[in-house]
């Protein structure tokens, strides 16, 4: 057996396959960009030709046929575009794929001088224009007489909190803090176990571990990309409104976030001890327990406290949609237009968030 040519061939083979996959990713990127430029430009053209009925309002919505046309146009343009070596998608993919970085094209005079670069700049300008129009930026509303009068009304009320409800607010605040605490405490063991499966450096050794890695990563990313407020809405249907639903929402989101933070910590551990323990003939579990865990416990603790801190803030927000605690109370008073009471609650929340912030910084400092 001639191992050397064999390994070389394997390498070139890998590069070739990477090129193949890169073409598709590039086509996707170029397609997205083409679709965006096309759609954005048409939006502005229509805003020009069919001005909105109300000044500052949005133009008439795109018809389904137009949407479809734009999508098909984007896909076709993207495919065409990505057949050019210096298209934005091709450039981006070539520069972010380690195996291909050496082959990334270098256009004369730089990317921004080519028409591809100009297209990207146009898309950025388009984004600014669309942003201003779509969010209906209206400085008049912000600084008009009526606007300022409203601002004064609410700030005056907030500045004169009604302290007679302090007792109720205190109780609800305690509820919020405990919702956050329970969610964090319950999330830690789950995330701890799963984080080892979600660490790339511990999964490379076998195809099965790699499959588990991908699965856990995928689920965690998916869960994390659903905001806690959405989870709260889901659980409010599942277990009905209240602190328990809020706790579950924060729990789910915390597990996913902690998996990410924890597993990144595992991926950055010193590999020396891992090799040393492996070399003694130790099994995988023993290696993880003796070489990895001691390196990550303190960072884990620090992340956990940080997470609790975040959860306290989120618990107040979740309360707004029915997740119990002080947020729910705030929503009630707000609905009644009782801004002095809202002021009391805001005061409490601010105090607690500051304290938590300070406390968690101190604790993390102490264990670092």
């Amino acid at each position: 057996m001639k191992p050397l040519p064999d390994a070389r061939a394997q390498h070139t083979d890998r590069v070739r396959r990477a090129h193949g996959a890169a073409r598709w990713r590039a086509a996707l990127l170029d397609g997205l960009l083409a679709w965006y430029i096309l759609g954005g430009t048409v939006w502005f053209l229509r805003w020009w030709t069919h001005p909105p009925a109300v000044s500052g309002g949005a133009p008439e919505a795109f018809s389904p046929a137009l949407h479809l046309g734009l999508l098909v146009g984007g896909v076709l343009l993207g495919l065409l575009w990505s057949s050019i070596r210096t298209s934005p998608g091709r450039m981006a993919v070539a520069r972010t794929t380690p195996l291909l970085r050496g082959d990334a094209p270098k256009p004369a005079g730089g990317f921004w001088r080519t028409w591809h670069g100009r297209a990207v700049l146009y898309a950025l300008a388009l984004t600014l224009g669309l942003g201003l129009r779509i969010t209906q930026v209206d400085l008049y509303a912000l600084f008009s007489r009526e606007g300022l009068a409203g601002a004064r009304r609410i700030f005056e009320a907030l500045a004169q909190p009604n302290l007679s409800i302090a007792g109720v607010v205190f109780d609800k605040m305690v509820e919020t803090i405990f919702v956050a605490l329970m969610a964090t405490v319950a999330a830690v063991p789950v995330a701890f176990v799963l984080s080892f499966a979600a660490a790339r450096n511990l999964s490379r050794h076998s195809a099965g571990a790699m499959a588990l890695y991908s699965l856990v990563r995928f689920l965690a990313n998916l869960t994390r990309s659903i905001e806690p407020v959405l989870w709260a809405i889901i659980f409010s249907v599942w277990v009905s409104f209240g602190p328990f639903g809020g706790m579950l929402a924060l729990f789910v989101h915390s597990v996913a976030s902690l998996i990410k933070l924890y597993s990144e910590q595992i991926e950055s551990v010193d590999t020396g001890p891992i090799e040393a323990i492996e070399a003694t003939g130790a099994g995988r579990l023993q290696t993880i327990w003796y070489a990895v865990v001691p390196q990550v416990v303190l960072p884990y603790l620090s992340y956990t406290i940080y997470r609790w801190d975040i959860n306290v803030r989120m618990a107040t927000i979740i309360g707004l949609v029915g997740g119990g605690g002080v947020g729910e109370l705030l929503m009630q008073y707000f609905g009644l237009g009782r801004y002095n009471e809202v002021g009391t609650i805001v005061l409490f929340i601010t105090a607690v968030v500051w304290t938590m912030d300070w406390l968690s910084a101190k604790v993390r400092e102490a264990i670092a």
Partner: protein
Amino acid sequence: MQEDAPILEVKDLWKTYDNGVAALRGVSFTVRRGEFLGVIGLSGSGKSTLLRCINRLVEPSSGSIRFGGAEVTAMGGKDLSAARQRIGMVFQHFNLVKRKSVLTNVLTGRLGAVGTWRSIAGRFSPEERARAAELLGIVGLGDKGDVRASELSGGQQQRVAIARSLMQRPDLLLADEPVASLDPSTSHSVMRYLEQANQEFGVTILCNLHFLSLVRQYTTRVIALQAGQIVYEGSPQEIDEAWFRRIYGEEAKEVRIQ
């Protein structure tokens, strides 16, 4: 196993890393029981790769490695664990578990032989603990058992690493530049413990070294690697100026460690 049979036979060993670098190109050599074999060569010549192939921290691309008569490259799971238990390893950067006590670090040398759950619960037997303490005494750190590994100096950490490998009761000890990050006098103290392991406990040693003076003083035989191939094999005393230039390049000058 016969006493005079070679403990390690490496035949036509190749290693090409995933990035296409051919670190070993057909390395063959034999180690007899009780030898203290030095491995020298420029940095990048493949010394670490060679040692790491022997206990399969690195997967060889092809070739044969026979340890005590058994083919290491064909081993998996339990066999590999059993072979690794009989092959100690010492690293340039010591690779101790820094947050654990010195004694626990020595005890980890036994992990392969201890059940998973018992070891995770930290329940090592009294005999194992006594042996770990004894080994710490041998490397001159008898009073440091309860200290965190991170609190020791480099030379002390390397001695703990030697104790950890001796905890395995190894037949073979792989040392990958064990003194490269230590100062000269500490280097000698660490090399002397390896020498003691070799002469008193009969552990065969394969040691990557940077300095020829250490090779001459401690090893019984030497192989030199250049670009993944063996270019010299013989007695350390016979490496003269001409050989030295061949191994380390024309511009090289020998530096001595006192």
